[in-house]
Each structure stands twice: as C-alpha cells, then as structure tokens.
C-alpha cells in the first residue's frame, strides 16, 4: 500500500508564484513607457532583434529624455504567437501602465493587440507587420513599416512596362503573402500580363525545391516572389541551384526576398533580381549612410528594412511626444502622430492623417555588386506612395 497525498508541493509553488507575480512596477509621472512586443525567439526572431537593435541605437543617438519625460522601453518576447502578444499587451497596459505599445513582428500579433489599443486608448505603433488592413483594426494603430500592396502594385506596373508577359507566382500562404499576390495580380493582369502558375507555399517550409521545379516547368518570363524576411536567403539559393537564373527566369517582387539583412550571403545568383521596396541599405542619402554606418558599428551587421521600421517607429514616438509637449494620453499622441513627416534613412516619409498608415517612396532596385558586396541598387523612384489597399475604398 502506498501513501497517496502529496499536495503540499503546492506550498512551495505558491510561495514561488507569489514571488514571480509581485513583479509589477508603479507608475512614475515623469516616465514615458513604451511596451515593445516583438518576437525575440522562434522563427521570426531576427525581426525582433533588428527592431530592438534599431531602437537601442536611436536612443543612444538621441538621448532618453523627451519633453521632460524619461523614455523607458519594456521589451517583451511574444515568439510571434498571437495569444502571447495579446496577453503581454494587456499586462503592459494594465500593470505597467505603458503609454504606447509597439513592435508586432507578424500580422496576427498586430491584430491580436488591436482591440486592446482601442479599449485602453493606447497608441499601437506597428513596426514590422505589413498586411494592408491592420491599421483599420483600431483608430489607435499607426504604422511605420510598409504595406505589401505599396510595393507589389508598383512592381506589377513595372513588369508590364518592361515587357514581362508571363509570370509565375510563389507566395507564402498568409495574409501578407496573399496581399502581395492580390495587388500584383490586379495591376499585372490589368496591364495585359498573364499569370501562368500560382503557388502558395506554407509559411513553415524547409525545402523550396519542388515549388521551384513547378515554376521552372511553367516557363514564365519572370517569377513574382514573396517570402517573409529571413526565408529569402534559402529561396534564392535554391533558385540558383535549380538553374532558374540560367534559364532566364528573373525574380521580381516586393523586397522582402532580397532583404539587406541576408543579401550579402546569398551568393551571386541574386544578381539582377528586381524588386520594389521601401528601403535599401544602399539608399544614397547622407542620413542613410550615417544610419548604416552606426548600425554596422554597433551590431556588426547590415540593417534591413525591419531595423528601419523600428528606427522610424521610435522616432515617431519621440516626435509625437515633442509635439504634444509632454502630454501622454493616447488621443493627444495619435493626433500628434497624424500627418507627421520626417526624413528617414529610407527617404522622406509621413503618416497619412486619414488612414494613420505610412506614406513613403517606393524604389525599384536591382541587385548589384558594390565594392565587392551585394546591394539593392535603386534606379527608379515612385514618390509618396500611399497604401493602395486603402486608396481603393
């Protein structure tokens, strides 16, 4: 016979729980808190790290006091899981009394936090996620990254004008991918182009080979590609391995596939890939040169567009706080953010007062070798592009 009562282990766990639970902090009047929720672990970790790095860099350069308030960033890891995002956002708002929530590596995460932003009247600054519809989910959402229709419509038009007739598409099967595909398809077919093959690949996907073989067999002039930042490298490697570059099938698409973060390691196969995007580390402006140099010095790697999204996001918060002269309530902040315009490393950008979405230049770039390194070199600029996803309505 054995003894079967043992619940006292709980006494230990309760004490432990009490210790861990009691870690909230009181609100100090002169502190302005930003809850930064990004994926720091899991498959999207590089997005979170870039944003975190960029924000740290910005705060080093610009100090941590704005309009008499000390800026404090509380970093949280959501591993790109929306239920984590939601809980963390809720805790940040309720317990830490943050003034702004920011970050959001993926679209579902931005969605999950939207009702909280509305309820708590807290601005939600989206620094990465790129699905068009996000900003419509709450009147408190502002975006400093980009939307996929912005770049996809432009590359669609460009493809038509440059004699590309038949295109095969390969996009990741989730909201941003579907956004990219829809906007590209609309412009491209309206201009007389033909989609000869359409493949949606699962988001978590180790081997592109079979999909690429399908692309190759459909014999298009070019292939339109959207894969999330981080997967671009693998994609381009296998594109070259399959000999698609030799068979004359060009890669076009939004710039996620040739993300600066990884571009230099992709090998010469990417040379000549034409993409439309909002940022290139090779953007020829003084502001950008300074940014890239500082980032490289601090983190020993090249900043990608995710880093710029974070850099501009924190700048937006700083500027808004200056404009409200230290007023920290959500409505004043959002009002101040609307219409703000500034020079970013990516070029001139502004926040659309109507949609709270970002208005920015979209550049057509081609991958070239500059000083022995691969860069997206911009050769055409479309100025002040609003999100076409919303302009329609």
């Amino acid at each position, binding site marked *: 016979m054995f003894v079967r009562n043992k619940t006292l282990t709980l006494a230990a766990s309760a004490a432990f729980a009490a210790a861990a639970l009691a870690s909230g902090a009181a609100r100090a009047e002169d502190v302005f808190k930003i809850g930064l929720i990004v994926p720091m672990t899991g498959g999207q970790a590089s997005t979170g790290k870039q944003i975190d790095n960029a924000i740290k860099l910005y705060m080093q350069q610009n100090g941590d006091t704005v309009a008499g308030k000390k800026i404090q960033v509380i970093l949280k890891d959501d591993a790109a899981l929306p239920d984590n995002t939601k809980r963390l956002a809720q805790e940040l708002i309720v317990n830490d009394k943050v003034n702004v929530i920011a970050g959001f590596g993926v679209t579902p995460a931005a969605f999950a936090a939207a009702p909280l932003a509305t309820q708590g009247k807290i601005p939600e600054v989206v620094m990465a996620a790129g699905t068009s519809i996000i900003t419509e989910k709450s009147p408190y959402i502002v975006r400093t990254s980009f939307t996929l229709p912005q770049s996809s419509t432009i590359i669609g038009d460009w493809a038509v004008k440059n004699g590309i007739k038949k295109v095969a598409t390969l996009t990741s099967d989730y909201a941003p991918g579907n956004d990219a595909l829809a906007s590209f398809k609309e412009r491209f077919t309206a201009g007389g182009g033909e989609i000869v093959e359409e493949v949606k690949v699962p988001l978590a996907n180790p*081997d592109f080979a079979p999909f690429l073989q399908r692309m190759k067999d459909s014999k298009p002039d070019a292939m339109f590609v959207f894969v999330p930042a981080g997967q671009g490298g693998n994609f381009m490697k296998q594109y*070259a*391995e399959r000999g698609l570059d030799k068979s004359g099938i060009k890669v076009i698409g939004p710039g996620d596939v040739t993300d600066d973060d990884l571009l230099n390691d992709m090998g010469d196969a990417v040379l000549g890939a034409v993409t439309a995007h909002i940022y290139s580390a090779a953007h020829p402006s003084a502001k950008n040169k300074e940014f890239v140099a500082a980032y490289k010095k601090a983190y020993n790697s090249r900043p990608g567009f995710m880093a710029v999204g974070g850099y501009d996001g924190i700048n937006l918060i700083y500027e808004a706080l200056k404009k409200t002269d230290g007023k920290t309530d959500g409505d004043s902040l959002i009002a101040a953010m609307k219409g703000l315009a500034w020079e970013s490393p990516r070029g001139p950008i502004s926040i659309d007062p109507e949609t709270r979405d970002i208005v920015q230049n979209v550049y057509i770039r081609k991958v070239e070798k500059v000083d022995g390194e691969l860069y997206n070199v911009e050769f055409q600029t479309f100025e002040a592009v609003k999100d076409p996803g919303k302009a329609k309505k």
Partner: protein
Amino acid sequence: MTSILTNLFDGVAYGMLLFVLACGLAVTLGLMNFVNLAHGAFAMAGGYVCAIMVNRVGWPFFAALPLAFVASAMIGALLERTLYQHLYARSHLDQVLFSIGLVFMTVATVDYIMGSSRIFIKLPDVLQGQFDIFGVGIGRYRLMIIAICGLLTVGLQLVLSKTRFGSRLRAAVDDPRAASGLGINVPQVFAFTFAFGCGLAGLGGALSAEILGLDPYFPLKFMIYFLIVVTVGGSSSITGPFLASLLLGIGDVAGKYYVPKLGPFVIYTIMIVILIWRPNGLFGRTATR
C-alpha cells in the same frame, strides 16, 4: 516525364540527407533505447562549425565537412561521458525532459553567439547550378549529397555486419550483461557509437545548410522529421531508416510538386498508415526491452 525524374532525383537527395541526419538517432533510440530529442542539436553544431570555418576562416568546403563530423562527434563524446551515460537506465520521460532541456540550451546559446538570422555556407563553384542529362535537371549539390550519403550508407552497413566492432555493438545491444561477461567493454562501445552518430548528424547538418537552411531553431524544426524516419523505419538495421528516409524525401517532394496545397498531408498520412500497419516500423523487431 523529365519532371518526374527530376522530382525523383530531388526526393532521393532530400531523403539521403534526412538519413544522414537521422541515422545517429536510429542508433541511440533504436539500439541503445535512449530517447535523444537533442539529436538535431549535434547536427546544428556541425553546420555552424562548417559555416565558421568556410566563411570566416576561409577553409575550402570539402575540408570543412570532415571537421564538422569530428567536431560534432567530439561534442557528442564529451556529453555522453559527462551526462548521457547516467541516463541510459532512466525512464523515457526523464530522457525526454533532459534532451529537450539540452535543445533549449543549445538554441539559446547559438542564438547568443551567432545571432538568429539564417546563415549560409559559401560553396565552391563546382557545386553550384544544375546540368541536364537527357533533359533531366540534375543539381550538382544534390548529386554530391547522394554520392556522399550513398557511400556512407554502404560503409555503415559493412561496418555493422562485417567488422568486429559491428558484432560487438550488436552483442552489447542485444544483451549488455552477457556482452560484458564476454569481455566487451559495453560503455566504451556505447560511447563510441553515440559519438559516431553525433558525428554523422554534424556532417548532415553541414550538408543541409544549403537545402534546409541553418538557424538556431534547426533542432526544434527538424526533430519531428528525425522521429518520423526512425519510427517508420524501425530499428533492426540501418536499412529501415534508410528506406524510410527515401520514402519521406520522395513523398515530400512529390507531394509538394503535384498537390502543393496538400503537401504535408502526404507525409503524415503515410506515416500513420505505416505505423498502424506495422507498429514497430517497416523493419522493426519486436520490442526487446
């Protein structure tokens, strides 16, 4: 027609790669009865060693491959002596807890040292691109994988069945007590086998960077695939896992090519059906312990 052959070729290459990655696990799990979910961590270690040697130190790729093997094998031997060997007799659940813990630690450590972005290994020109044989596209890199993995498989089979070490290992596995009574140093045999399995994983990790992508989450992402190979293949010989790897590789590639929307279905359904049909795997023996 040619696209069928190209797909077959890709599938075989993918399967071979999975086999090299997973066959060490087949040994630890199937023969030594140890659930080592950290197997992918050794593969990742090999991949990163190779990447560092090629990209930063400037070694040629073919010189770095054996080093990936050696490095992973050494890490494996070290961990076997210090940690693993104490856990052979423990319950499977303990082993799961331990090896998952090890994976978490590895993931965070690699992330800390190498960053969370994917990394690539700079390949020599010889291995890049594709050539056609009667219209069938043959990727050079995949061809090399098939060659290396094919040789390894034959070699392993010979070692296990023909050499003295092979018979010692089989004896040690079948009945450790009787084997040690016969003067076989069982712990040593196990340690060596474990290290060798880790080494193979390391080699597989280095080879897979190009195809599967290498980032700190590698061990978690591919754990499922390794387990499928081992359970579907069974553990009586290395033939089972070998065939299971090929089946998985070809099934995965064909599934994605012909029914892109249903890709993952194909694999998992095959696995479940096989396991229902033969609970001990294709070449399983009835559970001994």
